[in-house]
């Protein structure tokens, strides 16, 4: 895959990754390499390791084997390049913060501990809000936004952070149609600007219109490639079909 940023190192490279919870492995020996400027969908049945993969790349889970490199740099050093978007349930929506305040959080890394916001920082914040159509909502408390606006506010925060890799865990869950369309457009904008997006998603219906690349998981890598090829009937059978034999089922 093409890498406009850097010719030698891909945006994200995962080598032989295994992650376990309480000794039960959720991802087995997974390797992949993704360049920037792609919107990648993560598919697979429940328990296939979609969230686990996202959390591992975010540095929230410790790999048992293998390593993850961002533009050739280890995860700890590349933290500011990664934006992990929280699932809706993990956010305290009553927090005393406005949309602008939320987007400003993205700049904390650049501004440092007690430095004040420079003009450049202010500009980055305003640009991020403009890009995601949040400028008229800047003074609203975050609970006073619709679900789609809340998602876009977090994307704007990641943009202000100047992140290159966006990790989104089921962002379309619970969105109505209008919001989902707006979110899809926002993801498209990010891809055009050369970002790499890794998005877990459970509905296969609109996969091709949302993602140019798809990864199909089932505890291990089933397929990775252009969406239509990766989600071919055989591959889907392989990913979803095997689940029938692995669980505790009634065999009568």
């Amino acid at each position: 895959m093409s890498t406009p940023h850097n010719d030698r190192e891909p945006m994200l490279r995962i080598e032989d990754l295994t992650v376990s919870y309480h000794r039960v492995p959720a991802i087995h020996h997974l390797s992949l390499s993704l360049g920037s400027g792609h919107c990648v969908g993560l598919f697979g049945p429940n328990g296939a390791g979609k969230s686990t993969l996202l959390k591992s790349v975010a540095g929230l889970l410790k790999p048992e084997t293998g390593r993850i490199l961002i533009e050739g740099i280890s995860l700890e050093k590349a933290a500011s390049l990664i934006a992990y978007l929280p699932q809706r349930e993990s956010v305290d929506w009553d927090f005393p913060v406005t949309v602008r305040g939320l987007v400003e959080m993205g700049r904390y890394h650049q501004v440092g501990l007690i430095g004040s916001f420079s003009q450049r920082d202010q500009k980055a914040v305003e640009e991020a809000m403009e890009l995601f159509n949040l400028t008229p909502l800047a003074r609203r408390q975050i609970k006073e936004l619709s679900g789609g606006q809340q998602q876009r506010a977090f994307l704007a925060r990641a943009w202000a952070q100047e992140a290159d890799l966006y990790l989104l865990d089921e962002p379309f869950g619970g969105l109505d149609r209008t919001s989902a369309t707006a979110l899809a457009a926002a993801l498209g904008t990010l891809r055009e600007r050369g970002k790499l997006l890794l998005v877990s998603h459970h509905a296969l219906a609109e996969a091709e219109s949302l993602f140019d690349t798809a990864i199909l998981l089932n505890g291990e890598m089933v397929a990775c490639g252009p969406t239509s090829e990766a989600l071919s009937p055989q591959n889907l059978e392989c990913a979803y079909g095997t689940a029938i034999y692995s669980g505790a089922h009634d065999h009568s």
Partner: protein
Amino acid sequence: MNWCSHLLSSLVEPFGYSFMQRALLSCALIGFTNGFLGTFIILRRQALLADALSHSLLPGLAVAAMIVGLSPGGLLLGGLIAALFVALGAQVMARNSRLKEETAVASLYIIAFALGIVLIRFAKVKVDLTHFLFGNILGVGNGDLWIAYGAAFLTLGTLVLFQRPLLLTLFDVTVAQASGVRVRWVETGLLALTVLGLVASLQAVGVLLSLGLLIIPAATAYLLTDSFNRMLWGGAFLGMVCAVGGLFISFFANIPSGPCIVMLMAVFLGAAYLFSPRYGVLFKLIRGHHYHEESLERWEGHQGHDHQVPDKEFKQ
């Protein structure tokens, strides 16, 4: 003019006594510091943890009293060690077993409190349980005042310096961790400052009032603003005003100072609960239920997609 000067002289009267000067000063310091720290405690939803920790100070105080007597420094150290023991012990228990953290904290602090009461029996000096709970604001000595200065300086300095990582962590732990914040350090540091705040104000106001100053002013500010900064400094200011104001009222009305300060805070909390322009119970009744333009936009949006909706449902 006579009544005017009379009023004035009676207002400044408390400043004439040195015990009252020390009391006022320590009230202002503790009120401000605890009010400031309170914002972090509330947003982290640790009000009850702070309550538990306040009780777990007792065995540390008892051991300190047994070894070095009732010196402020010894009590500070003893209380600090005991509370950290409970707080960190609970974290370790929660991490290594299936017990959840609040269960571990609740178990440990009850055990610590009981242990403290047993240990008090063996202390050479007499430790008064009422004193532990309510303090003795008029008996504040210079040593206590120095401790209050030091604790205030350390707490405020640390919180201001690390305000940004703290804010990120409070808002969303996982996102903060993913963006490179050392979340565990931040959480442990906050815990340590809470304990320090409780212990440092022990002699003056006791654990109950200290806890009150930690929670109520910040809770009041939380009801009034959507800005983190305003909540932070507003809570601190309110804590200071209530502590000093309550002490004044208690002086003139001749009632115990601790309850008086709490009652004054209660008035502010009640007023904010009812009359806050944004989150007050009364104003919610009057205000519109939603943003009109947005509901219109949404409705029109759905109109446009009307024919697609059943289509989508069939596909899934």
